[in-house]
């Protein structure tokens, strides 16, 4: 996290490149939110790097007036890890999508999270392959009918938040592209967090998968389906908070009438060391077609991989002294040949 006194605006984070997403794409809203919040948070463009993979969302770095790498499919977390290790002074962001981050790049995402590298990872989940024009993705619901699955997809989808919690990511949040305020909170939390932060953003692809998140967005549905996680508060939802999240004896969670639930209502605590409760919360919905938690699932402090790596280098210097080439070359058995 880099801060500086000179106040910047959204414009300072906006590049001169024409934005080329389809009109109406959810990516626009996310871009505007990130540009604004970085300016507000006091980030510096020169100390900010956006690294992306391949896919619609991965064009994101071109539109930021910061440093940026548009890398190859799925590999952004790996590229960003090297950069974060080499440069502790930078804010390194990863922009990925459901195909990029969970299919071809699932391995790298998992390892960046479990290592707790100091990265902010934003996963734009639109439950579809947009750039390749409409095949089902690893987050498309089972039975999805798209170009490559005319009779319905056969594989169960990944719940990205469950995945992140499963590898004990230290900051895990979920938000919605068009909910400016909520999205700002979720991403600002990621920015503030030292270590790997993961934010899943439900992003509408209005060309190939329009309306995938209607249950959480449509005015007549959203109040019934958005389960907002607020630190320290009982988890209830519905127009009159009439429904509550309660813990079951088997460790899972379920819904109940708030009046009946009494003190069984789960009180949200993102700072719990154990990821188990957060994981149970993430299992309340598999795809966001019904009641679905949004907000910060987990936010804990853990040693950061790249900090520790640099500490080891420093420790080696402290104990052995700065390396001297002549000593290195002549280490071990040496002998002299005279003239």
């Amino acid at each position, binding site marked *: 996290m880099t801060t500086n006194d000179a106040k910047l605006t959204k414009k300072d984070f906006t590049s001169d490149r024409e934005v080329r997403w389809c009109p109406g794409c959810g990516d626009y809203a996310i871009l505007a939110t990130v540009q604004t919040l970085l300016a507000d948070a006091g980030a*510096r463009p*020169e100390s900010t790097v*956006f690294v992306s993979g391949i896919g619609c969302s991965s064009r994101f770095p071109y539109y930021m007036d910061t440093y940026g790498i548009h890398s190859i499919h799925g590999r952004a977390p790996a*590229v960003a890890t*090297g950069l974060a290790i080499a440069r502790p002074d*930078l804010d390194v962001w990863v922009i990925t999508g459901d195909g990029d981050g969970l299919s071809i790049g699932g*391995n*790298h995402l998992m390892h960046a999270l479990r290592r707790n590298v100091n990265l902010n990872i934003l996963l734009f989940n639109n439950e579809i392959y947009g750039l390749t024009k409409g095949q089902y993705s690893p987050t498309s619901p089972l039975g999805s009918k798209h170009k490559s699955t005319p009779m319905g997809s056969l594989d169960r989808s990944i719940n990205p938040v469950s995945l992140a919690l499963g590898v004990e990511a230290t900051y895990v949040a979920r938000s919605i592209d068009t909910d400016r305020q909520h999205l700002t909170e979720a991403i600002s939390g990621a920015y503030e967090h030292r270590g790997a932060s993961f934010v899943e953003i439900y992003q509408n692809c209005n060309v190939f998968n329009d309306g995938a998140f209607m249950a959480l967005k449509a005015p007549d549905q959203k109040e019934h389906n958005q389960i907002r996680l607020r630190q320290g508060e009982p988890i209830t939802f519905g127009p009159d908070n009439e429904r509550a999240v309660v813990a079951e004896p088997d460790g899972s969670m379920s819904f109940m009438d708030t009046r009946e639930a009494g003190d069984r209502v789960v009180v949200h605590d993102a700072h719990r060391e154990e990821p188990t409760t957060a994981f149970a919360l993430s299992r309340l919905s598999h795809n966001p077609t019904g009641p679905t938690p949004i907000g910060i699932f987990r936010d804990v402090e853990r040693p950061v991989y790249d900090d520790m790596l640099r500490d080891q280098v420093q420790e080696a*210097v402290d104990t052995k002294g700065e*390396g001297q080439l002549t000593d290195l070359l002549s280490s071990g058995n040496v002998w002299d040949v005279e003239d």
Partner: protein
Amino acid sequence: MLVSGTIATRTTVRLSNAVVRFAGDSGDGMQLAGDQFTTQSAMAGNDLATLPDFPAEIRAPAGTLAGVSSFQLHFSDQDIHTPGDAPDVLVAMNPAALMKHLESLKPGGTLIVNSDAFGDRNLTKAGYEANPLEDDALTDYQVHEVQITTLTLRALEGHIERGELNKKEAERCKNMLALGLVSWMFSRPIDETETWLQTKFASKPDVADANITALRAGRNYGETTEAFVFTYEVKPAKLPPGRYRNITGNQAVAYGLIAASVRSGLPLFYGSYPITPASDILHELAKQKHFDVSTFQAEDEIAAIGSVIGAAFGGSLAVTASSGPGIALKTEAMGLALVMELPLIVVNVQRGGPSTGLPTKTEQSDLLQILHGRNGEAPIPVVAASSPSDGFDAAIEAARIALTYRTPVVLLSDGYLANSAEPWNLPDVDSLPDLTEVFAFTTEPNGPDGEFLPYLRDPETLARPWALPGTAGLEHRIGGLEKEADTGHISYEAGNHHAQTLLRHERVQRIADDLPPLEVEDPSGDAQILLVGWGSTEGPIRAACHEVRQKGIPVARIHLRHLSPLPNDLDDLLKAYPQVLCPENNMGQLAMHLRARTLVDVQTYDRVTGQPFSSSELVEAIEALVTEVPA
């Protein structure tokens, strides 16, 4: 046979050189024995070359042919370049080792066998129908049957009784007994080995003591038994004056990378995924963190090179290494590094392929993969190490090219170089290239209107600016999509793509303008045959050339450090000789490349046995070429 008693006199025979091979089960500690014998030889001032050879399995089934591990050492009072063809002395710790290696022992050579291991079970496992120690299978050799296991246990009786180690642990010291015997045979002091054992087993003094006892017992056995009539001595070699140490190829590459980091002032970032035979570079660098070395063991080969791209973008001297299968996985990212025009090094320690192939055996068969194995027109500079210690200079040269031209560079090594050792005349650190001169980070906008143009090139080297994140005013975004000249903006324009493709070729080609002329070894000046080599074949080719010249056949020799771009003076050289022969541990990959470039009818000598060439087979190949020359 256990013999007691002493003999008063014994003849010491002076040899110019000797080849000794230790062979046994992979659990028998042959690599350790060989390593220690190598150190003794180095300390005796011999020139030397080693050839470790072990199975890919950590513990292949005991007693089988597949489980045999061997270590060969060639040492000499002369300048030598190969680990030797046929051994003069073979130590065979079990029937499988004998079965596998007897064939290569010189007729009349000395054979030391552990007769304790020649029971029926082991004989059957090795495929012997009858015990070779009991029939006339070994009449051509000077055979010494030694009860190595029994002698070891006897020497350690006291240790076992005192409960310092059990019988099985005691038996494990038999490699030291064998080493002690061979050390004695070659008039070698064993104190260096004793010191080494004390350090290695510092936390287990009983084990150190047992090994030392076994080592001494081996020496004393040689001393006291009458079976050994001769001992041997190889005088120090007349090497150029200087300070020496032994070094393996992997170690030399690691040291070269550290040297390049020190001499460039850039921190070294090393991202890699474990793979045979490259992992030792990671192990070595992980020990040297006090040189501001960051080592990152990635989750896979792709992540390894991905991390390296990120670190290079951040301003590190960034390096990854692998072997063929891993390089295959890295190819897409190598293309990205190429178009992002970032300086980084990819080390390929080649092994037998295709696919998983022969993990622990050497081969040079990734050359075309490295030159051409990427999507699109994707030229990358390539340099190759030619001997174990040359890995040091080759790594520095790779870094020089990467930093000067802002490009990924491939450094080729192979399984033989990686694990073999040779004496290395230590360079004067101050004489190493000053790499701070070849690059500078860009700190100011370079465009006409005060903007930053990330692809505005140096007119001479065509290198683009290296502008690091953290520098205000130079923010830029780059990636794998085709770029417009200067701005680096995405461009799909047809003419632009053609122009950029030409430029990327030209950029690599220009490196050749800066290379020193090729060194031609043609002592008589009237050679009709030119040998062209690259990589680890230098030793055997050099030795073979030396040998045929002594037979009166004049031959010339060049060895290529740079495989892409090829040196500018190569074409004329190849055309100047009526015959050109290119020996390679592949099916003629460089030859194919040279033919395509020069239209010269380059002859090939290709073998892929997982072993380096012997000089004698190359002598034959050269002689065959001579008889072809029309009178």
